[in-house]
């Protein structure tokens, strides 16, 4: 042990608050207790914070329990246990750093990706929105019919021998009482107040709170109108008025079939999450089931989509590549120009150039759509002397407009990163080039540009991925239009893949929703973007050798 080392040790240990022990003591204690068991002031702070985390976690667990969200409950418990273990164990030092990030990764990335992947293999969408139990329930309530011409009965909820029942007043003023098992029978000595039954011998009238406490039981209670099931049953929705209903659909839980009582048709569940009769007709409400690769085959197998899909794929690539190239070149050019120290008022110019970047993309694209209006747009009115140039309605001009607006929106970003990269170029390399006799152009081509690309290439790739999925611009500017004149699907010349997914999946409200198909298509897009990015990153690695 040398002298310098011990002087270095000293201030560190004495500097730690609450740690008055000499360096030797610290070293000795290292074996049986880590800093995690150092009961100093910091430990109690940690204790308090972990306690708070646990308290919130327990609140979350209780909420999840209340909502019967057992998956969330289990993950909450697992994360809480992990957090407590990590921050009190002496063996989990690296995890202390990683855990928060890891947990966020699991919740916000892995879960989302896995869930999208799962949905891609189901038929989740319109008509297949919920579970089978809920579908059955919905079908049953949708197919109850009030008996035509039947009257509304003032109704009271009663309890007969521990069973719920209804007491109604008929038009003759008679009181009839019944339960689910015993049909309505007339009770002679009941009391009626204000047209409603207030007292029945042998049964207790429930007050409002008692009724509300068992709303489900009351709304699902059916009291047979008479011994004949054909007469239907009394039902209520507000516990004030009863009506006579008959069911046209009956569910047999044992056989798992639905029967239409009017036609006798029997519906059995099929593997697409619907009740199907033998003749192939189905009942409206279905449920969500796993359908395998069906969504993927639909995405590529529907002949109506095949032609437009190819066109859209090509345009998507063209749009992304041209967008990146044009914004980068303009941004780079302006960055070079405004990087010249001889230019006066550079800061003002630079600030002005950033302005398009400061305007939200949504808004800017909408404003541009207005500016480019054929008859009333500022561009045609002012720059083209009122010429009716169809900027957004001609297939080729629309593409030009999309790229032009994206250039306006995108070059400030490239300008910013190029300015940054230019300013961080090592001056010695530039001086060396000068000394070697390289001219302006040569220096730019052989020194500045390669060095610039090293730092900006990853950003160009991310910009490509962003523009590949630049839904906002397309949707706000042209909505994909003008439409393909020869296609039978609502897709257009400026649609890119992501806006195609949007309209195919029906999320925009122009077609029945199909989340399964949308998820499948987004997985396909992800694969395309990921492949291109991976290839591009591999290529840019060769650039790094330059620096």
């Amino acid at each position, binding site marked *: 042990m040398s002298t310098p080392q011990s002087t270095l040790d000293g201030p560190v240990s004495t500097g730690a608050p609450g740690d008055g022990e000499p360096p030797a003591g610290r070293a000795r204690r290292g074996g049986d207790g880590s800093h995690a068991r150092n009961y100093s002031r910091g430990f109690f702070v940690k204790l308090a914070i972990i306690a708070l985390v646990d308290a919130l976690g327990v609140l979350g667990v209780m909420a999840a329990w209340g909502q019967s969200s057992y998956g969330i409950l289990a993950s909450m418990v697992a994360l809480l246990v992990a957090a407590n273990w990590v921050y009190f164990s002496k063996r989990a030092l690296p995890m202390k750093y990683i855990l928060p990030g890891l947990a*966020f990764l699991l*919740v916000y990335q892995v879960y989302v990706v896995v869930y999208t992947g799962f949905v891609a293999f189901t038929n989740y969408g319109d008509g297949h*929105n919920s579970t089978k139990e809920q579908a059955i329930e*919905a079908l049953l309530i949708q197919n109850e019919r009030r008996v035509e011409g039947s009257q509304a009965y003032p109704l009271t909820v009663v309890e007969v021998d521990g069973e719920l029942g209804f007491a109604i007043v008929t038009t003759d003023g008679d009181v009839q009482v019944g339960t689910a098992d015993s049909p309505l029978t007339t009770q002679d000595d009941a009391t009626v107040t204000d047209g409603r039954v207030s007292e029945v011998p042998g049964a207790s009238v429930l007050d409002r709170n008692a009724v509300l406490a068992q709303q489900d039981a009351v709304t699902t209670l059916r009291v047979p109108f008479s011994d004949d099931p054909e007469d239907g049953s009394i039902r*209520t929705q507000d516990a004030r008025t009863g009506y006579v209903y008959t069911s046209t659909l009956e569910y047999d839980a044992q056989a798992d079939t639905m029967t239409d009582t009017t036609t006798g048709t029997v519906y059995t569940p099929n593997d697409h999450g619907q009740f199907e009769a033998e003749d192939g007709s189905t009942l409206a409400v279905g449920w969500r089931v796993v359908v395998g690769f069906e969504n993927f085959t639909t995405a590529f197998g529907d002949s109506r989509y095949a032609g437009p899909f190819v066109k859209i794929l090509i345009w998507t690539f063209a749009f992304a590549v041209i967008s990146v190239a044009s914004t980068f070149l303009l941004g780079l050019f302006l960055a070079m120009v405004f990087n010249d120290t001889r230019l006066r008022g550079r800061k003002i110019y630079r600030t002005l150039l950033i302005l398009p970047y400061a305007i939200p993309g949504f808004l800017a694209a909408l404003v541009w759509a207005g500016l480019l209006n054929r008859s009333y747009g500022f561009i045609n009115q002012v720059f083209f002397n009122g010429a009716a140039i169809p900027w957004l309605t001609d297939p080729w001009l629309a593409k030009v407009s999309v790229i032009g607006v994206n250039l306006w929106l995108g070059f400030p970003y490239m300008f910013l990163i190029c300015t940054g990269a230019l300013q961080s170029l090592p001056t010695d390399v530039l001086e060396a080039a000068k000394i070697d006799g390289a001219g302006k152009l040569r220096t730019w081509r052989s020194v500045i540009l390669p060095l610039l690309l090293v730092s900006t290439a990853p950003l160009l790739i991310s910009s490509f991925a962003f523009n590949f999925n630049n839904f906002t611009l397309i949707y706000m500017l042209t909505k994909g239009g003008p439409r393909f*004149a020869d296609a039978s699907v609502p897709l257009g010349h400026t649609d890119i893949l992501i806006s195609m997914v949007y309209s195919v999946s029906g999320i925009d409200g122009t077609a029945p929703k199909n989340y399964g198909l949308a998820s499948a298509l987004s997985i396909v897009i992800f694969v395309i973007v990921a492949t291109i990015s991976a290839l591009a990153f591999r290529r840019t690695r060769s650039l790094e050798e330059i620096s």
Partner: protein
Amino acid sequence: MRRSIPLVAATLGLALTLAACSGSGDEPAADSTTTAAAADGGSLTIWVDETRQDAVAAAAATFEKETGATVELVLKNFGDIRADFLAQVPTGEGPDITVGAHDWLGELTTNGVVAPIELGDKASEFEPVSIEAFTQDGQVYGLPYAVENIALIRNTALAATAPATWDEAVAAGQAAGSKYPILIQTGVEGDPYTYYPLQTSFGAPVFTQNDDGTYNPELALGGENGNAFATWLQAQGAAGVLSTDITYDIAVDAFAKGESPFIIGGPWMIDSFEGLDLAIDPIPAAGSQPAQPFVGVSGFYVSAQSKNALLANDFLVNYMATEDAQLALYEAGNRPPALIAAADSAAADPITDGFRKVGAAAVPMPSIPEMGSVWAFWGVTEANIISGAAEPVAAWEKMVTDIEGALGS
């Protein structure tokens, strides 16, 4: 050990996030208290949008006082309600009641998220078209509170009398010497909703209708009548009367500046026309049959998964179906009420009365699920015909085939 403190703090953030996530982002704590409180006075969760919030709150206050129940109003953006309701009801986290529009009905029933409501004798107290709109397969699924439709809005300073036909309107507009003879919002995507009365005047409704006002999933907009309408569109476009450059904003702005005596539009435009002396007239027919606009009905839906169905129905049938509640909603939203008694009081305002009279001859917008497949083709075809980009009859027939293809898939 000091350096672990920031990490613990980060975990705190994580736990907060997870706690927030645990209810799929929808106030888990509030919902669990809802279920817990149902044992006493009962409680209701209602989704409302901003315009209707105060009016519903007023009715809820009466309800709370009389029944001892608690009502929780959740403010939602109207545009989000439909999708959120569809997504959340199956998870059991949705509201007991939500405001909504009648044309969502097909989608809501197909997905089994909405329960029928029995209005009983009260049904006759509503405007027939409003009940019709919320009826599917013989069951009523919503409590209507407002009826809205478009009409011809006339600037009386520029045109003294109401035109009976489209040609008369155009002639009157030209005689007035204003910039546009008549304004109708179009845009490059078209606007089939606003153009619908002109289409019906040619006898080409979108779907065939049963006697009771409900629709069959059978297209009716094709055929000779449809082609006649398409040809007429092209002629009007060529004559410069109709133009795809006229968007909603441009149309409203031009009318407000007095650049046209007529605009076809709804009550939502009226606020933009302050200072003008307006009259509301029936939409002039372009063809030989009456011009029938679509009626949109706003109402309340009860969730199929509501744990408080009794309270929800009680609230709607016995508290929201009253004249006071409907008038309060009218004052908030400025659309004619659906309850006839309330509509009669609201008709004291000549503008409201005008829209109501036009609405009496209108048809409900189809709420069958098939309607969702129509919009995407319809408007664009109209716009292409008007702009001259497409041959009218061929484009119209292709549109019918395309819609049939979309319905079949």
